[in-house]
């Protein structure tokens, strides 16, 4: 299965690269791929911050001056603040003053204009920055998906790359579009937007197939690996105990926690019981004996049953690679064709017109060439699939939780057990009543006090 996963991994890399490259090249005419955009964004943010800090600092100083120096704001102080806070700290001059400041009025005169300029620059730079951010996040998630085989990363990478197009569409830039929609299916297939959409969808499909191939083969491989580690850890623990018993000096185990004890909860618990448990010698003895007994049990099992190892690793459950390759290709092809054909039907106004036989007024209306027209068919078609699946499920009458299947003997045994318990209770109750009655009768007859009752009385008096 590893081979199949690697083939699909390579296919995933190709489709992702193609998708990313197409997005890059289609958006390139907009002149948005400025490689210094992240730097410019950070610089603009600092400029805005410096302006705000300067404003706050002067306001505070003004307030203090109002309290202690009758409202007179010492120019030198403000200049000093500016030169220290803005120029020396961030080495930038966003206020139209190129040299060290000497006159505070120069700043205040253009303060609001400067603030406005900085905010507009920030707005523009934010988008430039976001394109890079989305691309960066997309690539990072894509790399993660290759290593960790998790669908979240695949979905994240897909959405991140498509988010670049969404942002660009929001900024009304040149983005991939299929407008007007070609009436011919083949023409529809060869448009640039359609190719990008197909590549993007292919990336999703191939990546999910890659995760399937990995997850269907991996548990069996992991199982084998875990068993090896467990047996090794067990063997080492037993040897160590033997060495301790022989009075030999034992060096610390070469096995790391991640590969050894942590991978083996039983041994870990046994170790904890020994090291951190009740500290009693007997408890340690139990833990040691448990590990040793497990070793003996496993050794016996592996010797007496030749299939035991294969069953523990579930080797026979590993699926065949050839079927997975074949079914991946056919399954993906069928899905691709169905999705493309259905989407064309749903999205194309000509098909809508043909199917609905609309009056001329509506056929020529502008609404029909709006994207929202897709909803007209999309909702019912999309709902039709889960509905038919629900009908099929209902027809096949599958039980989600099955009732307990007991054999006739088991049922009878449970019944007899219940009956026996009820009989015992009844008898005990009857005996209790009889004893109470007897005692009551004896109480009436005061001929002599029972010595046991006397003992009880005496005990409770004292």
């Amino acid at each position: 299965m590893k081979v199949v996963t690697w083939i699909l991994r390579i296919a995933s890399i190709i489709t992702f690269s193609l998708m990313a490259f197409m997005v890059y090249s289609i958006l390139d005419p907009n002149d948005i791929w400025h490689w210094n955009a992240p730097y410019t964004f950070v610089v603009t943010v600092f400029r805005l911050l410096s302006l705000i800090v300067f404003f706050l600092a002067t306001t505070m100083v003004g307030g203090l001056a109002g309290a202690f120096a009758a409202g007179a704001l010492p120019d030198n102080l403000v200049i000093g603040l500016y030169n220290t806070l803005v120029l020396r700290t961030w080495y930038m001059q966003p206020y139209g003053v190129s040299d060290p400041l000497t006159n505070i009025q120069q700043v205040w005169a253009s303060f609001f204009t400067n603030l406005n300029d900085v905010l507009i620059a920030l707005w523009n730079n934010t988008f430039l920055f976001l394109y890079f951010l989305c691309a960066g996040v997309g690539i990072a998630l894509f790399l993660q998906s290759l290593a960790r085989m998790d669908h979240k990363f695949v979905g994240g990478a897909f959405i991140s790359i498509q988010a670049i197009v969404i942002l660009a569409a929001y900024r009304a830039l040149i983005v991939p579009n299929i407008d007007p929609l070609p009436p011919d299916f083949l023409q529809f297939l060869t448009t640039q937007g359609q190719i990008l959409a197909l590549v993007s969808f292919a990336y999703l499909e191939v990546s999910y197939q890659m995760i399937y191939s990995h997850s269907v083969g991996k548990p069996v491989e992991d199982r084998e690996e875990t068993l090896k580690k467990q047996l090794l850890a067990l063997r080492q623990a037993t040897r160590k105990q033997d060495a301790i018993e022989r009075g030999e000096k034992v060096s610390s185990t070469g096995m790391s926690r991640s590969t050894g004890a942590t991978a083996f909860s039983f041994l870990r618990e046994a170790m904890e019981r020994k090291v951190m448990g009740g500290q009693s010698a007997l408890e340690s003895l139990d833990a040691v004996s448990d590990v040793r007994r497990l070793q003996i049990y496993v050794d016996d099992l592996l010797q007496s049953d030749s299939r035991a190892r294969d069953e523990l690793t579930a080797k026979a459950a590993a699926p065949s690679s050839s079927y997975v390759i074949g079914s991946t290709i056919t399954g993906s092809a069928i899905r691709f064709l169905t999705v493309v054909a259905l989407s064309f039907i749903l999205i194309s106004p000509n098909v809508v017109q043909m199917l609905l036989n609309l009056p001329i007024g509506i056929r020529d209306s502008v609404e029909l060439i709006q994207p929202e027209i897709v909803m007209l068919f999309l909702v019912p078609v999309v709902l039709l699939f889960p509905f038919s699946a629900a009908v099929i499920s209902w027809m096949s009458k599958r039980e989600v939780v099955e009732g307990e299947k007991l054999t006739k003997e088991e049922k009878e045994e449970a019944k007899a057990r219940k009956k026996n318990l009820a009989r015992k209770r009844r008898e005990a109750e009857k005996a209790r009543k009889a004893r109470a009655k007897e005692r009551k009768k004896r109480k009436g007859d005061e001929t002599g006090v029972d010595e046991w009752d006397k003992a009880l009385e005496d005990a409770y008096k004292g």
Partner: protein
Amino acid sequence: MITQRGFVVVFAGVLLLTSGFSFLNFYLVLLGVYCVIGLVVTLPLFALTANLAGIEVDRQIDKVKLFSGDFLRVRVTVRNASRRHFDFIEVHDQYPETWILAIGENFIASRIEPGSSMTFSYILQARMRGRYFLGPTEVIMRDRLGMHYYKRILKEHTEVLVYPTWKDVRRLESFAKQRQLGLMFGAHRTKTVGMGTDFAGFREYVPGDEFRLIDWKTSAKRGDMVVKQWEQEKNVQMICMVDTSGSMGNGYPENTKLEYAIRAAVLLTHMGMERNDLVGTCVFSDIVHGYVPPGKRPNHMYDVLEILAMAEPKGWSDYETAISHVVTQTKKRSLIIWMTDLEESPAPLLNAMKTLVANGHKALIISPFGPWFEAPVGQFGPVEKVLSEAVSEELWERRNKIARALSRFGINVINVGPEDFLPTIMRTYEQAKQRGVAMF
């Protein structure tokens, strides 16, 4: 059912569709449609093929009865009895919470072809005695892309009876092995002088003694008539009365009063059987749950283990019912050892003792004292500490009164904690053997 990754696709589809509508972009709309259609298009086909009724699960275990602390291999075979491929199937076989997964894993995920089967196994350690069930088995089927799933729970239970731990016996045997001369060496024997084959000694002749018993050689040496005496070993008969009322379940999970009482009963039965004594066991609360009369049958130990394994701490202690049950079934004089926490009203206990003594039996009470089995006082805050000490004192006073009342009739009450429970039962047995209590 849509999986988490299915929802990621739905989210992406809706995001792209709404963006397409907002910015009048057909590319975004098309991609949104792809995502949404791609998600649902295979759903009917999946529903048609994913009929999990075609999956059969068979669980096999090496043994159905085992001791607490023993290991058990569980083999699970998953068979596809249908004519369909199951692209991705996950099988989780559940086991009792208190057990430990020692080796292997209790689940498998793979694909399964029509008519084929896959087998996996794992090794469990049973930690606490009782009646347990392995299962149910959860079968989850996903489609290839993992966007939809169906789940089915197969309530195929496998019953396993876990006997009380055998570690005390093992420990006892390992000590005996260390002594090389065996468990019995140095142990006091119950002897009766008279008939027998073992030489006991000489005594002076008294009129009425049989002539054949006179040892002429020794008589000649001593110059007086001497009779040779012989002895034979006698065995004792004991019955363990294990109280399983609700209060016996107090204490740390694996170290409750009941667990100690059960361990003590196992140890006593084993020791008795080793020395050819008869030891019976009665498990009771408000009814008699089980009674194994004293015996020497080969399966005697297993019968005792079985009723002890099933014991659950619930109900209240009806000593009178228990003793009347035992007395009616036991004709020979026996030493009856009660293992009870004496937390019920004392009157029924005294009445039960009255019945017991009246029938010629001897009795002894080994009573686990509740506060010694629960959280150490050091773990409490000041208020809880004061309260617990007050409760302990009151309980102690109460059981002292009961002990005083019982001592008048020769019945001892021995208060025990977790540390001295088992040594006490061993000592009691040794003393009973020495004194020859309840011989048969």
